[in-house]
């Protein structure tokens, strides 16, 4: 039952991505419209028919997506703009109700996860559908507008939207290759496993440090959790849910400290026309340091 529902939800994602693919292909202002269109259509096929086609073919498509990205053939292009008049009219007519679909999405997702046997993933899917129907009813939007807003949103998310799934895939490849055990062995030579507090400090600091170097906490999470979090904290008896949740936010302390996280720390400097290029990071540094200590303490006391 759950699997059937999930397959239906993946097919819907496939449809949404196909829409983005078709509209990317039609966008003549985009010099890379064929590459971008192909990127979305590959994903559409993988989501809609993932288990029906041989895995090696899917793997080939992933490699091709990597090649397209390498040659800068996946680009945003020109997205349809939000009509300011409609936005203003909608704001006046709906007021606070404009937030209602978002609240319904969160409430329905959690309710299905908690009170039915369908699980969290199906919950998100059903929540998304119910909230979309509610948004259509509230805004009285015609189908064409729903289509336009869908392709605008999906294309604006772009290749960054698929990054979490690609990183999870990388994590799976690491596991298949035994990377975690090897790094654990290497680190254990320098830093013996066994101490709860030592393991927690090692994991949290490594998350923050690698995130600062790479500028991306998601990428650090996939790598550092396999290499440090599991062998040094979870395998020592730490509760996996607590360790993982706090491990990710410990990584965000690294994001707050690094010019590598350009979207968050460099973009505002340009946007706000600031004199000090490190001005945002300087305001964040005390909180980042304090939050790292807090999270080490929280993980140590809550996980064991």
């Amino acid at each position: 039952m759950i699997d059937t529902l999930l397959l239906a939800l993946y097919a819907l994602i496939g449809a949404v991505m196909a829409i983005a693919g078709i509209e990317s292909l039609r966008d003549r202002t985009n010099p890379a419209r064929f590459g971008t269109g192909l990127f979305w259509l590959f994903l559409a096929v993988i989501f809609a028919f993932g288990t029906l086609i041989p895995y090696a073919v899917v793997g080939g498509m992933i490699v091709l997506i990597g090649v397209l990205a390498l040659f800068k053939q996946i680009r945003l292009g020109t997205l349809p703009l939000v009509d300011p008049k409609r936005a203003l009219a909608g704001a006046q007519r709906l007021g606070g109700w404009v937030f209602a679909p978002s609240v319904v999405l969160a409430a329905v997702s959690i309710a299905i996860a908690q009170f039915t046997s369908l699980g969290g993933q199906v919950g998100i899917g059903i929540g998304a559908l119910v909230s979309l129907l509610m948004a259509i009813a509230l805004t009285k939007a015609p189908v064409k507008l729903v289509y336009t807003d869908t392709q605008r949103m999906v294309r604006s998310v772009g290749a960054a939207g698929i990054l979490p799934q690609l990183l999870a895939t990388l994590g799976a490849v690491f596991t298949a290759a035994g990377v975690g055990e090897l790094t654990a062995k290497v680190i254990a030579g320098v830093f013996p496993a066994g101490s709860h507090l030592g393991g927690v400090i090692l994991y949290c600091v490594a998350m923050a440090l690698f995130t600062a170097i790479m500028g991306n906490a998601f990428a650090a999470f996939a790598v550092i959790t396999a290499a440090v979090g599991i062998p040094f904290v979870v395998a020592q008896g730490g509760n996996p849910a607590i360790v993982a949740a706090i491990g990710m936010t410990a990584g965000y302390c690294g994001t707050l400290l690094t010019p590598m996280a350009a979207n968050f720390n460099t973009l505002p400097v340009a946007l706000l026309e600031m004199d000090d290029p490190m001005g945002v990071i300087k305001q964040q540094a005390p909180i980042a340091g304090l939050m790292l200590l807090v999270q080490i303490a929280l993980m140590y006391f809550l996980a064991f």
Partner: protein
Amino acid sequence: MEYLKLIGILIIVIGFALKWDTTAVVVIAAVATALCSGMSIPELLTTLGQSFVTNRPVSLFFLTLPMIGLVESHGLKEVAVNAIQKLKKLTPSRILNLYLGIRELGGIFGISLSGQVQFVRPLITPMVTAAAEAKRALSPKDIDLIKGRAAAVDNFGNFFAQNLFVASGGVLLIAQTMDQLKHPVTPTEVVLNSIPVAVVTLVIVVVYNSWFDRRFNAKEDRA
């Protein structure tokens, strides 16, 4: 050479640090790791394809995009801006703290606005500057500090509350990664265990912002 398998980690670290295309870096790292651990090309493609298909749950948030697009084109940002603009005659810290609260609340419901572009630049920075100016004249350095603080508050609220939403990319990635590593956790468990950090952030940043006010009061006393 067993250690060759670690090449994937090296590629990720160097590739991200040098700002190569992120999608390409991750795919190359996966391919290199698989090859260096002794897989043949067909094995590699099968592993890659199977892992990607298994990890489809991470991308479930794509299903929420049509709804978000629709409310966005019908005034989501405008309603939020109206609400914030009603808060006139406030101190710098109150404006910053209210914005932090709004940002964390948005996190719970998965409303991730591009805060720096849509709020910090057009709304929060001018309001905080005006509130501080009402206390005393500002130097260019003061104004730069205000800009930095406003941008920082947006990041605090955004980062430490985004995992409160069950369908966020981060939560789904955590759940799926832990599953791959044979220590399964559900998205709901991740959300519940992200609450303490979100609450502590709120408290610490509120205190931090209150100190920021003193900067403008203290100098007034001295003048």
